[in-house]
């Protein structure tokens, strides 16, 4: 049995008396890749912020392992253009960083040649790798990646996921990833947790994609395999028992608003 890094215990958070998250139970073990999926506005990022200690939950608690060290990779990096900053200087800002590790870490994520580049001129994929390097320099045993492939083309996405899996295998760290679709993450994930304000379903990717709650949110896998990109239905309705009321739309009708790949 692997070491438990984090467990969420009935986490809930309200904002302006609106429930953003309710009754979330979730665990992450060392060496495990957990993917958090859910439509836009489902509370994925809020849950991440609670884990990182950036936001306090209204209800429930987060139990963190004593030795927990998080490497966090935010969704985006905005640095004011008036701030001249090279990749090297950006990475040197990591608290208690050993500067000798900067170059090897950049090599690990495949961008050693960008050591002296200004951070503002990097492409989307390069920025994500710099952010990954910064997360790694914090010597994490848990990597928290908020939409790590955002703004990266499909080939780049596959490469990044391979890289993340390689890092997990090397460091045996836990990985919590946020994604708003599952198709590319599938093969790399041990556990999928599908949330929409509450945990809709969780388990192995095969289990989750077969689950009615998942299908109500993301469509039936295989139904549109020729496109291979699942469209989202962005919300669903619950009855009093908490089960999902289908609104008779089938998955295909949502293909009209596919996410850009």
């Amino acid at each position: 049995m692997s070491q438990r890094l984090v467990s969420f215990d009935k986490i809930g958070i309200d904002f302006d008396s609106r429930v953003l998250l309710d009754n979330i139970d979730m665990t992450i073990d060392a060496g495990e890749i957990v993917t958090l999926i859910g439509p836009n506005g489902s509370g994925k990022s809020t849950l991440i912020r609670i884990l990182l200690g950036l936001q306090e939950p209204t209800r429930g608690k987060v139990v963190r392992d004593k030795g927990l060290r998080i490497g966090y990779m935010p969704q985006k990096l905005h640095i004011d253009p008036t701030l001249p900053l090279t990749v090297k200087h950006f990475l040197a800002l990591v608290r208690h960083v050993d500067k000798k590790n900067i170059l090897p870490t950049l090599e690990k994520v495949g961008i050693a040649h960008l050591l002296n580049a200004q951070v503002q001129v990097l492409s989307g994929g390069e920025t994500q790798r710099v952010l990954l390097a910064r997360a790694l320099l914090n010597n994490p045993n848990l990597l928290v990646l908020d939409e790590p492939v955002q703004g990266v083309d499909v080939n780049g996405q596959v490469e990044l996921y391979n890289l993340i899996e390689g890092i997990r295998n090397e460091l045996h760290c836990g990985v919590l990833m946020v994604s708003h679709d599952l198709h590319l993450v599938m093969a790399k994930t041990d556990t999928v947790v599908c949330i929409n304000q509450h945990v809709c379903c969780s388990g192995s990717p095969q289990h989750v994609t077969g689950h009615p709650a998942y299908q109500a949110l993301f469509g039936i896998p295989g139904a549109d395999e020729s496109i291979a990109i699942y469209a989202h239905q962005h919300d669903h309705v619950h009855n009093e028992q908490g089960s999902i009321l289908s609104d008779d739309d089938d998955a295909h009708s949502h293909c009209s608003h596919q996410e850009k790949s």
Partner: protein
Amino acid sequence: MLEFLIRALLGGLGVAAVAGPLGAFVVWRRMAYFGDTLAHSALLGVALGFLFNINLNLAIVVLCVGLAAILVTLQKKQIIATDTLLGILAHSSLSLGLVAVSFLDNVRIDLMAYLFGDLLAVSQTDLYWIYGGGILVLTLLVTFWKPLLAVTVNEELAKVEGYPVEAIRLLLMLLVALVIAVAMKIVGVLLITSLMIIPAATARKLSNTPIQMATISSFIGCLAVCGGLWASYRWDTPTGPSVVVCAALLFIIAYSSPFKRRSA
């Protein structure tokens, strides 16, 4: 050379040397309007200092820090957009200061000197304040350079990595307040922000790293002080505005010069 000119030069250089690096942070964090608001409230500090008969510099620092604390609290509550909030605080505190000053019957205050500065009136005591305060600010800046920069670049990453983000933010405000208190004598409450942001903005064009930008803006600020003082002596123009005009000229020269902003 005349003694008062030497004192003016020493005072101006001391202020510019400190305002440069701090101005870089003001530019990076887009705090220019925030600096303005604190500066405008400094006049209220002067009035209160006279009223309660305490040291003026101390009164200014206390008032600026207090206002900064109020600002942060109100900002968190998100009652109103930050720029609106700053506008309200800046102008009402300036007006409050002007009103308060008018109540001080038995004290003659040279209002113009406080609003626009009077570099030529720098006294020996002012020099002690400038250099004492300046060395304190620079020491804090050097000591806490890395956390200050980390919080400026990305607060969330800094917090996850264990930096005390709130404390660092407070420190930065305290530093800005200190600089305003010492710089007020030189350029006055209405022009202080310019001495922080114009040299820093000029330095941006010439620098590749944060440290370079901070150092270069110090030098540019000093250059502007020398130029402004010379112009003021030569043509009998008001010193504070002359320094600012000189800084603005340097900015224009830097940005219209042919060589490109350095970037790898």
